[in-house]
Structure formats: C-alpha cells, structure tokens
C-alpha cells in the first residue's frame, strides 16, 4: 500500500493558497490550546492535521469554523479576512465541516437534511424541486450517489457520511474539514471515502483531514501538519515521511510500539454454547454464538458497531443474561451479576469510560476501589478502609502512570482526568484486581479499550494487555479498529447481525475477507 501512495494523488499544478491562518492563539485559562499557529492550505490539496488528543486540533478547527474566537491571530479565506466567531460567515466563505459525530436528523430524508437551515423561515413555500436538482447534480459531479428520498435512519454509516459531505458541498463549500472521518467506517467504506476525496481535489477543492491514524494520513494527504501541546511542530510533505517519524514528532518522544511475547494457549477459561440474547423488542442481539476463550490467548471480535458485540461484551461483564444457551466461566455457569464476575477475577474494561467505566464526580481514589469496595480489603463492618483504599489508588496511579492528579492528589474528581488517564485508571483497576492477591485476572474483557486514545496512551494500554495475557489471562477484545485487532489478536471472529463467525487465527484473515465478513458476506455463505 505505501507504494500506491505516491501515485495516488497528483500534486497540484499551482499551489495557490485558499486558506491562511496567521498566528492563531487560543487560551483557556492558563492552558494555551493553540499557540501562534500559522498554516496555509493550497488549492486542490489534502492537508492532514495530526496530533494527540489535546494537541489543539479540535480547537484550531473550531476557531476556523467559528465555534470559538481566537485570542490572537487572523484567518483569510480566498484572500478575504474571515469574521471570527460566526459559523455562518465560515459557511458563506466556503468552509464546510463534517463532524465525527454526524449532525443529521434520522427521521428526515436526505433531501430534507440537506435543505435544513438553508431556507428563510418566513417564506411560505419550500423550493424542493430546485434543491433536489442541485443535490442530484452535486452528487453526480463528485461521484456521491445517494437517493435523495431515502430516510437517514435507513442508511449505512458510510452513506450518512456521504450525506454530510454532500450537505457541505451543496452549500458551496470549497474547503472541507473532515474530523476523524474514518473512525466509524468499514475498510471498504474507507476506500470509497478516499475515492471521494480524490474527486474533490481533482475538481479544485481543498480538504483538511483530521486523524490520528498514521497509515491513512500518509496515504491520503500531500502535506501533514503536526500539532503537539498547542504548537505547530512541523509541516511535512507526506511523500518521504514514515510512520515512526510521524509518531515521534507527534508524541515528542520515542513511542515504544507494543511487543508481543510468544505465548501458547492454555486451558479453556470461558465457553459460550449456542448463546442467544433476545432484546425486549424480540430482536436477536446474539444468535447461537459459540466461542471458547483460552488462557494466554487473545480472541478479537471484529464487526461494524451495532451487530451484537455490545451484548457479547455485556454477557462477559456480567450485566446481561442469556435468553438461551450456556455460558461457563472456568467450568461454572455464571449468573448475570457483575459483582460475581469481578469476584471470579474477570478484568472488565467497558467501551464508554465516562458513562460506564468511572463515576466522574467521585474522587480518583474512590473510583480505584469502585468494583471491590465491599471486599474485606477495602471495608469492614460497613466502614470503608480509607487508608487501604487510598494506598491502593496511589499504587495504581504510580504503576499505570495516571497523570493529572498533581494539584489535588487522590481527591481529584475523576472527570478532571483526560480520557487517556481515565482509561489508565480503569485499566489498572481491572488488571490489578484484588490487591491482596498477586494472581493475574482469569479473563480480560476489553470493549474498545483504546477508543479515542492518542498513540502514546494506546501503545501503553496495548502493552499492558499483552503483558497480562502473557502471564496467563484469557482475553476477549471487542474492537472496531482493525489495526488494533491485528496488533493484538491471536484469533479473530467477525460478528454480523448477532451471528459470530468461527474464530480463525489472525494470520488466516486478509483485510478483504474481514471487510466482506463485516458486511455480512460470510453469513450468507453459511446459509
């Protein structure tokens, strides 16, 4: 694939500047989110904005789109100054934004969504015919075919993204900002998005592409701007850059990519037999799933979000009971009681660390004992052993490198931690388990453990998981990130509409196979 990269986009003939940021500075209190950033975007160019979480990417883009007002600096679009703090002005100047989380009304049609907000409210008649013509024409021009009358709820994630892009284009965007556009897409949808981007720049549009996935950035962009700690560290041509260099520039130190130690699978720890989970509305969330998890082995579940991986993870978190079938942990049938799973030594890492993994309003030390507060290590006769709990938290913070507790110590409210540090706390809580025992967890259940983490935190989480599995834990990984799956998994299974494929060794899967299976092709084979 890297060979493809150079031929992928023709460099623009004349890089005349369409967007110019001069000395953009934005402070939030004592934090400098953007520090005198100057940047230019050429006509027909894809500029990647690369940086860790908190590097200032979102702030910069929000200033450009008028959500924030810069403390200092100016913006020029097509040679004219852009009024600060007005999304309308940005739109009128030809800046369009596609957010990571789509801003579409699910119950309206594509056409309605594209028209939404474009018509004056006092005008009694809607100019649907004209709007439809424009939508269809724009779609044809850029190769973005979508049925104007389809309801958003019926569309796939990739199609919804196309609608978002169309929405911006119909409103006359000449500069398109895409915020983490590939995070929610299947491999095939990513290819199709890159095709769209190619068409856009061939027709003279310019794109700012925000991502933290290095492969994609190298493939899709011509120049890469790297932000770190609010400063623009470097602007590199994509040709000639390599991953290690980008990662290092982004993080500011050498990143230790996780290393896998050889391991041999041991005894079966957890077994699912014909496991079926039926939702309240009668839909089968999981349909006769068979799966075996062995000590010292990582099994990954790939799949497009919403195909049943949530139910599978919740089964093994002890939150969901089976409608039929069997679930055994170390040969014992287990009830759907989270406390029992914790006691059995299951390390649980939920997908949503803010809503499920931690109680944000409670201090760090209380969250560190959240799963085990009732056990004799942390309480006696209904009284919390404060000293024991706090020293446990202190050890977790030290061992798992949780930062952000300097000012207020263990009493720091957990929501004040950054996402990466909160995840390290949850990871540490799960992997250490019972502080009075030195045993590794019997089973790790990790649902999107690195979702939204920057590359440094990601590498750290991966290393910790790999090390714990090497000590003999079994692990189930649920992830939508195929890079993560292939970096960690020994065996991979794909879930589609509640049905799980057999878990085959990771080496036997090709990217194309897995993409097809995620789209349901294999399930059709089986019938």
């Amino acid at each position, binding site marked *: 694939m890297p060979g493809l990269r150079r031929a992928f986009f023709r460099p623009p003939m004349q890089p005349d500047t369409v967007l110019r940021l001069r000395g953009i500075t934005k402070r*939030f*209190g004592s934090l400098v989110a953007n520090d005198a950033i100057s940047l230019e975007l050429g006509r027909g160019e894809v500029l990647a904005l690369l940086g860790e979480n908190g590097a200032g990417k979102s702030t910069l883009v929000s200033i450009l789109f008028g959500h924030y*007002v810069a403390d*200092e600096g100016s913006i020029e679009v097509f040679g004219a100054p852009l009024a600060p703090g007005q999304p309308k002005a940005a739109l009128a100047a030809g800046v369009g934004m596609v957010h990571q989380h789509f801003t579409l009304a699910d119950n309206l049609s594509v056409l309605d969504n594209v028209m939404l907000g474009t018509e004056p409210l006092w005008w009694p008649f809607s100019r649907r015919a004209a709007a439809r013509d424009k939508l269809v024409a724009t779609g044809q021009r850029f190769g973005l075919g979508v049925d104007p009358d389809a309801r958003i709820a019926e569309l796939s994630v990739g199609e919804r993204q196309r609608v978002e892009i169309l929405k911006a284009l119909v409103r006359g965007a000449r500069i398109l900002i895409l915020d983490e556009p590939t995070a929610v897409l299947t491999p095939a949808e990513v290819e199709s998005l890159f095709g769209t981007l190619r068409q856009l720049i061939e027709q003279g549009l310019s794109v700012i592409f925000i991502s933290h996935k290095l492969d994609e950035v190298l493939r899709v962009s011509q120049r890469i701007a790297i932000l770190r700690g609010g400063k623009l560290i470097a602007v590199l041509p994509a040709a000639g850059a390599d991953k290690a260099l980008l990662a290092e520039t982004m993080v500011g130190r050498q990143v230790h990519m996780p290393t896998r130690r050889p391991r041999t699978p041991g005894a079966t720890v957890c077994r699912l037999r014909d496991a079926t989970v039926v939702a309240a509305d009668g839909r089968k969330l999981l349909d006769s799933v068979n799966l075996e998890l062995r000590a010292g082995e990582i099994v990954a579940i790939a799949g497009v979000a919403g195909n049943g991986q949530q139910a599978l993870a919740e089964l093994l978190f002890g*939150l969901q009971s089976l409608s039929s079938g069997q679930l055994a942990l170390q040969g014992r049938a287990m009830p759907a*009681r989270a406390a029992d799973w*914790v006691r059995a030594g299951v390390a649980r890492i939920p997908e949503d660390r803010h809503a499920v993994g931690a*109680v944000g309003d*409670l201090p760090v030390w209380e969250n560190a004992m959240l799963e085990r507060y009732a056990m004799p290590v942390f309480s006696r006769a209904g009284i919390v052993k404060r000293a024991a709990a706090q020293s446990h938290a202190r050890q977790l913070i030290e061992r798992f490198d949780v930062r952000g507790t300097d000012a207020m110590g263990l009493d720091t409210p957990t929501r*004040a931690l950054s996402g990466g540090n909160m995840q390290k706390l949850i990871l540490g809580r799960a992997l250490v388990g019972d502080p009075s025992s030195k045993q590794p967890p019997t089973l790790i259940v990790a649902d999107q453990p690195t979702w939204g983490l920057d590359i440094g935190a990601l590498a750290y989480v991966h290393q910790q998981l790999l090390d714990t599995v090497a000590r003999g834990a079994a692990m189930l990984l649920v992830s939508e990130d195929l890079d993560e799956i292939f970096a960690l998994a020994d065996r991979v299974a794909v879930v589609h509409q509640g049905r799980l494929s057999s878990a085959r060794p990771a080496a036997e899967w090709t990217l194309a196979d897995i993409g097809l299976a995620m789209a349901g092709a294999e399930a059709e084979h089986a019938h």
Partner: protein
Amino acid sequence: MRIEKRAVASRRLQLAAPLLAIAFTLGVSSLLVAWAGAPVGKAYALLLEGGFGSTFAWSETLTRATPLILTGLSAAVAFRARLFNIGAEGQLYAGALAAVAIGGLHGGEGFALHPALLFPAMMAAAAVAGALLLLGPALLKSRLGVDEVVTTLLLNFIVLLFVSMMLDGAMKDPTAMGWPQSVVLQEALQLDKLVARTRVHTGLIWALALAVALWALMKFGTLGFQIRAVGANARAAAFAGMPVGWVTVKVALLSGALAGLAGAIEVAGRTSYVTLDMSPGYGYSGIVIAMLAALNPLGVVAAAVFVAGILVGADSMSRAVNVPTYIADVIVSVSLLSMLVATMAAQYRLVFRRAAHAG
C-alpha cells in the same frame, strides 16, 4: 465577553457563592419591603432580632429548626442518590400519626408498656411508617421506571386526607370539643424541655445527632459510598457491581424514616397531638434546606437554622412594621434560587475578549 466552563470549579468561588446569594436575596427582598411601605433597614433589624436577637428568639428559632433539620436530612440523603423524594410532608404526618397510635391511643395511655420500652417503640413505629410510605414509590421507580416526583408528591395529598379521616374518626380526641385533633400523647413519652419556660426540646439533640450520624455514614460508610456512586452515575455503579435497585430501596427507607421521625419528634416535643396544621410545609421546606446545604448533612443544620430564623423573625417583624409574613417565604425562595444560580455560576468564568487582535 463570553462565558466558558471551568475544568475544575474554583474552591474559593464555591465558598463565596452562598454569601453572594444571601446578599442578593436581601437586596431583592428589600425592594419588596420598601414596596410594602416599611423602612427597609428597620425591617431587617427587626427580622434579625426576632429570629436571633434574644434567648427567646433563639429558642423559638431552634424549636422551628428541629423538624426542618430532619426533613432537610431526609431530602439530602434521597437527593444524593437521585431519588427525588417530594413526599417528606406526607411521611412526616404518617410518622406523627404512628407515634400517637403507639403512645396515645388505647385509653389515652398507649400500649401497656413501660415508657422506657414504649418510647423507642413509638419512635420506631414513626420511622417505619415514613419509610414504608416511600418504599412504594422507590420500588415503582427502580422496577418500572415510574417518576418518583409524581408519586411522592401525590401521596402527600392522600396522606393528608387519611390524617383528616383519622382525626375525625378512630383517633379523634373526645375531649377536644369537636376540634379535629388526635388524642394526646402519654405524658411520660413527651420530650423534656431543654431550657425552662421555652418550647425548645430535646428533639433538637436527636436531630443534631442524626445529622452527625448521617454525615459520618455518607463520608465513611460503604452505604454512603454506594449512595454517592449511584446518585452520581448509576450506570457506572451498576457496571462496577453495585446493587443499584437495592441501594435505591435502602435510601428510600432511610429518607422516609427521617421524615417520619420529624413527625414523631414534633408531636413528642411540641404539639403532643396531631392536627392537620401541625406542619406549615416542613416537608417541602426540607427540600429547600437540603438544596441550600448542597446536600451536606452538616450544612443541613446550618441551613435549617437560617430558614427557621427567617420564618420566626418575619413573624415578629410583620407585627411591628406591618409587612406581610409572606416576606419570609419570599426570602427563603429567592435565597434558594440565587444559591442554585451562584453555585452553577461558580463553575464558569467570564472571559473578556481583547477586541483589537481578533479581526
């Protein structure tokens, strides 16, 4: 000028917020006092004097504060777990009725037991009555998702009608010349006075002890930890293995019991029998007090004394300068609103934009 959220609320501002809120409240209320045609300075001086200016004033304020501390604690513990118990008023009456049923009925002497046994039985009955009254709404909430604000609020009216029925029926005092009031509590069960020739009674000690106990439970107990975790993020608490429904039930029992005790202590310490007007909305004021105290049990004591002092002071002030006693309700309500706004505002900062650069 823009408003931005602070990452961590400033501690100094959080302490200053109540003071600013009180200052704002006095400002707003003084407009109303002036409107009523009274001299503002004198009215406030009289209000303070009436509430806190003498031993008698203090005794009246503390008498009034006693049930308010208990209903305030009831609301504070329930709200901390996000169980919005609006039914403390009903639970208070249920407790009062239960106290009289144990200690006053059966020939005006209560059950034939030694007072040393009868007194705890009476208090326990009141606590159980209040607790059971909240158990239904709590179960409906945790099992079926029924909104407890609606159920507890409506239960208040049901309880009041029930009390009315009992006062005219089974528990009617035959010597009360037809007034709707219950039989009198046996003399030995009534609480002693703390200070001679005042109404302040040992119920105040009970209320203070319960406030300290609840504070310790919330801070050091595993149940307090469960309550705080469930209230702050029930999904995370459930993920971690906490029995969320069971915690809600325990909180309901605790909150209802505290409100029920408020009724029993009010009967045993002040009125000695139940009437339909024995509580001028203590249950509802408890909510205000809990919010003023930011749900802190020790703060509840301070807030209850403050509210009681305003209520008592307003009585004597209105007699002297002819401002309606409703001014007390206005002061309490405005102080609640400005308190809520002030604590919210402490989480934000104002940013003044330097206009010149941003063009």
